[in-house]
């Protein structure tokens, strides 16, 4: 009985594999960010897109600039979000740490006014303003992914694996 079930399962898997191949579905290759996450990623690896940063800029000017300044320069007690002090303050932490702070407490009067996705877009704009490079994939809004991205104020010297 057991061996018949086992044979049936093997046949079913082979069949679905064949079907999959017939429909053009290949075994899924890792997306670029997933690949880089497994290798160790930082803000220097192009972790947001320019389009996302443009969306983020509009949101920033509407909901963040009142306290953090038009040019991310800070006002009163809301600190600057660009420049040496800001970079120093987050250096050694992850993009996820910064995202969590924004997610839980910003905008200060009503954090729920922006969605997770919108906050990721604002963060993309902040990264862009600070001259970290843009890339092909958007900055995700799941904290567990963002925690894989190291926030490094200086570009790390790292051997890039040679491309095939």
């Amino acid at each position, binding site marked *: 009985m057991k061996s018949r079930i086992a044979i049936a399962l093997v046949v079913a898997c082979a069949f679905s594999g064949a079907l999959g191949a017939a429909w053009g579905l290949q075994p899924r290759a890792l997306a670029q960010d997933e690949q880089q996450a497994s290798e160790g990623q930082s803000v220097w690896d192009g972790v947001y897109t320019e389009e996302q940063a443009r969306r983020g800029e509009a949101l920033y000017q509407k909901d963040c600039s009142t306290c953090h300044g038009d*040019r991310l320069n800070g006002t009163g007690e809301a600190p600057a979000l660009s*420049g*040496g002090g800001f970079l120093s303050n987050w*250096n050694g*932490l992850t993009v996820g740490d910064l995202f969590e*702070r924004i997610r*839980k407490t910003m905008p*200060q*009067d*009503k954090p729920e006014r922006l969605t997770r996705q919108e906050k990721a877009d604002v963060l993309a704009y902040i990264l862009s303003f600070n001259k970290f490079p843009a890339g092909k994939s958007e900055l995700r809004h799941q904290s567990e992914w963002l925690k894989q991205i190291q926030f490094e104020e200086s570009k790390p010297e790292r051997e890039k694996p040679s491309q095939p």
Partner: protein
Amino acid sequence: MDYIKGCRVNCAWLWIVAVLIGTPLHVVGQHQARETEWPTYAADLAGTRYRPLDQINASNFNDLEIAWRFKTENLGNRPEYKLEGTPLMVNGVLYATAGSRRAAIALDAATGELLWVHGEHEGARGAAAPRQLSGRGLAYWSDGKDERILYVTPGFRLICLDARTGTRIPTFGEGGAVDLKLNDDQTIEPDLTTGEIGIQSAPVVAKDTIIIGAAFREGFTPRSMRNNKGYVRGFDVRTGKRLWIFHTIPKKGEFGYDTWLNSSAEYTGNTGVWTQVTADEQLGLVYLAVESPTGDFYGGHRPGNDLFGETLVCVDLKTGQRKWHFQLVHHPLWDMDISSAPILADITVDGKPVKAVAQPSKQGFLYVFDRVTGKPVWPIKEQPVAVGNVPGEWYSPTQPIPSKPPAYSRNGVSRDDLIDFTPELREKAKAIAAKYRLGPVFTPPSVSQLNGPLGTLTMGTASGGTNWPGGSYDPETHIAYLYACNSCLEPVGLVQPPKEVSDMRYVYGTAGQEVKAIHGPGENAGADAPMPPKKKAASDYVQLNVDGLPLVKPPYGTITAINLDKGEIVWQIAHGETPDLVRKHPALHGLNIPRTGQESYTVGTLVTKTLVIAGESQVTTTAEHPRGAMLRAYDKVTGKEVGAVYMPGPESGSPMTYMVNGKQYIVIAVSGGAYSGEYIAYALPSE
């Protein structure tokens, strides 16, 4: 007493037993604090932040370990990143405010175990409060039997709790609460829910009287020249009944009313006492440090000297009647709020004993007076100062400047203050500074102009010098210890705001940049308020740094020891590790730069029998420690660093110390950046 007379032998035993237990039967009046306790925000009513404890000393400070820790994340509907409290410790229990709820908590002082928590849910009134988050602390009172905790909520209500259980005492006020927006000799506008008034400092109880001031929004960009007023009140600790009120802006017919020309005392507001109050119970006197009137940098709508704005006022503890006053800044224009507790010090000057009060300030002056008469201990002379030309403004031709002690932090800006690590950096700094008006203390603000000056570049204003954490004082040696921000630059330019932002002629701003209301921490940004139409900025924003480095040269933050018998500075050191961005800057590669100290306005000092202790409010990553901030100890005689222990995040509230079960603890509030609020207790390792 008949009972006592009728039972001589038994009562003798009763007395012996009572003495052995340590509970004198004859105790009346307030709780007599032991040296091992910390019964009020600043250690004592004199504001000394001093305890004569020495178990933790230079020989073992480096051995300190975290004894217990208490996170404040869930004391509110979101975590808090600005925990500013200094807890109290009485009878083995630690009391503090904490969390975005500004909850009151009681912890076991030896283990940090939560004993009780109390929170007030204030709805819209709390959300509209000008000063939110957990504030700076609370007050304890006892008559030997009854023990009470008193604190003020963000929505400006005075709450009285049973210290043993954390429940409201029903016989106090209305069911344990006094609505501070009522019975304030004014109608709080526009209504009780949204009317702007609140407080973040800890209340103080002196001889059964609770003393409460008032605070408002940040004053850089007021919505109006009109605002609610910040009177000071005394309340009965048992009943919550209002005992007295002091009008910091005089009413018609009261002394000082005519120092507000054109009847501007009628509509001008603010001018509250938002910082800590000190009191001399023996003399029956209270010392009030008053803030700026409406409009931190523009006073055209309140011509005249504006008493009692930026004035040190002494009032009677029982009646609130003014005994003496001294205005530190006439017609305030520099946001020189008197920001910290007036320190009561019994000193000896030229061989004569003086009961003094020493007032630290943002402007780096320590003003010292006889606290009975108000007479300055050393001459404070009216000096002529520059007069400005902002349209509609009124200027005082002189300002009082102490002759002694010398200024302990920078209060003007000159080219000599600019960064000088290298000639190239100095040249770049000069080019930036050339866009501003420079000058010594009391150089007036300027209208911001596109082609320059963009404003007056200042230090010793807004966040300069000593701020709300205040100073410390050693009553044994007569030395005051003052942390100061020595590099808190504030460019003060004035612009004409659109009507929807303010009805004032001028508010703080920069020419060519959109005028935006400046908000303080935790302030409601008014989600439904109409935003002014967006204009493209006509000018590039000028960064007040040189390639990321501070525009001015170090030291960025200092601790100064001042001998109050002589009015002299004994020592001054840079407090705080050199910031990472300075240490690692490519332009400074190869240079040997001494420790620069850190720019901050949240650092407070603690003085013990041998040490001055203060934490860092910036994180750094060095060879000595991974990413974090250090709690540092200095020899109080020499200022030499004798120890430092690691904190996982920056300090955000002043440290305190106490002893329980023969063990000394230091507790400090840590929060900021990625680190949500936590009280951390340090102690020596157990034997």
